[in-house]
């Protein structure tokens, strides 16, 4: 193997991993404030990409405006999902939260299938046509956008969570909504904001993914599954560790597929999960214990 092959695979893996990470951010945020594993997250993002895609030809909007509107729609849908469904699920952890988000996921899929037809569409290339070569490695502007977007979103989030009053409120709600309420935090508003922001970030992820693969009602599912895997292994109540695992997963897949072939990806990834979780010290596993 040559150096440029190694670099090419690493860059490719980083891009895939960043996409998993972008999907994961919203899942982690939403889990923080409502302790729900949101199966509908990927489809909320897909709605953003679909909206943007159809707004351009139908209303003659510039792509950037359409993308912005798509993100707004995703934020709204995510907010509505919480207000109309999730916040009404009485017992979180009873399994009903799982069914509720699964139901929403199926519902959004069905709606989009009905409205947009079950076809696949070529999404906006978002810089994929701007290509350049460096050290024998092929890039395009789209790859850089993905990695930069992840960095920017993570940076902004760290800033908001750690340096602002809003961030403090979010962290308080994450620890205990009841205590947060007694200290004067508007729990409802914080929750609404986090769901909306989570939806918008899902939209960002879905738009970038659509520009790499192809747009239809189902393209987000494999990315959602990988985001869950990274989140659960790393801990849904953390940030750094699951994000690192998401990016690592992308790199791992890239190398495994090159070395062992694409059909070795599933056994490699899932055997690794089993082994890792099997040998990790119990102390590490405790951090995800259920809260009363």
């Amino acid at each position: 193997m040559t150096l440029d092959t190694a670099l090419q695979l690493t860059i490719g893996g980083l891009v895939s991993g960043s996409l998993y990470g972008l999907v994961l951010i919203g899942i982690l945020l939403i889990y923080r404030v409502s302790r729900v594993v949101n199966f509908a997250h990927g489809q909320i993002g897909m709605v953003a990409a679909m909206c943007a895609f159809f707004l351009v030809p139908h209303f003659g909007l510039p792509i950037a405006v359409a993308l912005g509107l798509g993100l707004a729609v995703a934020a709204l849908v995510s907010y509505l999902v919480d207000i109309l469904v999730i916040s009404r699920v009485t017992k979180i952890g009873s399994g009903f939260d799982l069914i509720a988000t699964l139901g929403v996921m199926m519902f959004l899929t069905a709606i989009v299938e009905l409205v947009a037809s079950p076809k696949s569409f070529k999404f906006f290339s978002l810089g994929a046509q701007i290509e350049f070569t460096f050290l024998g490695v092929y890039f395009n502007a789209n790859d850089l956008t993905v990695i930069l977007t992840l960095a920017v979103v993570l940076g902004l989030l760290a800033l908001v969570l750690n340096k602002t009053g809003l961030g403090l409120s979010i962290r308080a709600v994450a620890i205990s909504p009841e205590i947060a309420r007694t200290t004067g935090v508007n729990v409802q508003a914080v929750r609404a904001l986090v769901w909306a922001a989570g939806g918008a970030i899902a939209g960002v992820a879905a738009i970038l993914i659509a520009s790499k693969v192809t747009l239809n009602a189902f393209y987000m599912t494999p990315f959602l599954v990988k985001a869950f895997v990274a989140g659960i292994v790393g801990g849904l109540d953390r940030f750094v560790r699951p994000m690192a695992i998401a990016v690592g997963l992308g790199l791992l897949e890239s190398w495994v597929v090159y070395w062992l072939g694409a059909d070795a990806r599933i056994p490699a990834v899932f055997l690794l999960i089993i082994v890792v979780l099997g040998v990790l010290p119990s102390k590490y596993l405790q951090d995800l214990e259920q809260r009363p």
Partner: protein
Amino acid sequence: MFNMQSVARSDGRGGPENLRHMAWVTGGCLLVFALPFILETYWLYLVGVTAVYAIAGLGLVILFGFTGQLSLAHASFFGIGAYVSAIGGVHYGLPGIVTLPIAFAICLGAGAFVGIFALRISGLRFALITLSFGELFYWASVRWSDVTGGEQGLYAEPLSVMGIDFGDPINAYFLFAALGLLATALCFRLRDSSFGRAMAATRDSELAARSSGVSVARTRYIAFVIGALFSGVAGWLFSGHVGAISPNFFDMFASLNMLVAVIIGGVKTPLGAWVGAAYLVFVPELFGMAGVSNLYPILSGALLVLIVLVLPVGIVPALQQALRHLGTSRGDKQ
């Protein structure tokens, strides 16, 4: 995080309660015997599928409802049972009844192995472990096509034991009814046993369970193995009943479906497994009867959300509550 408060059950039955209970049981038995002579074969087939999914669902009730463990490999154990039956028949010409102990043994072994992880991992991470085994099972069932028939799967002959052909819908019905009732009775017995109390304690509070001398790890492990066995036996029944099996019966979505069914039905009661299985099988049928069969896939998600919002405890507990409510309001009038 899958900590649940127990749904109130009807406890402390008095004399008249007992009588009413017996009347229900007798009526139920009569119905079970009469059904196959009333229904067309099409409905008998569906009842058979319901019974199979209910038996698998009982395993989930024990695993998730009683013990609080989330498994996404349930359909894989179902698949092991189904493949053992079909592979035994296709490749080795074994009659169905011979493959039952083999299926049982392999599920026991597989459950005992995967269950090892339940000794110290719980919650979502345990769910991820089971999902991983499920994915490996699916991958193997597609790739190992010389044995499994690959994506197109295998055909399975209906069971035939001592000259009784269970390909006949009425015979099959009685077999499924008998096994279904047996599994349900087992599940009830298990719930009311001391092990049942250990499971409930493990689910409700690990700390409390430990302090009262319950081995949380051991309880989880045994519950997992029992759950796997229920699912495996159901899978073994399934392959002969539908006549053809392929990997997509046993993938992650199949496991999720099973979970959805028992949760909707009422995850803490064995009856919930039946209602959940009936939901999976007969709700699409209702759309078919209304002549809008193709609307079901479109509306199924919305329907799930609706059920969660309207019946936030599951169908069986909701019915029980309603019945009890009816009972007390009548009592007030007297």
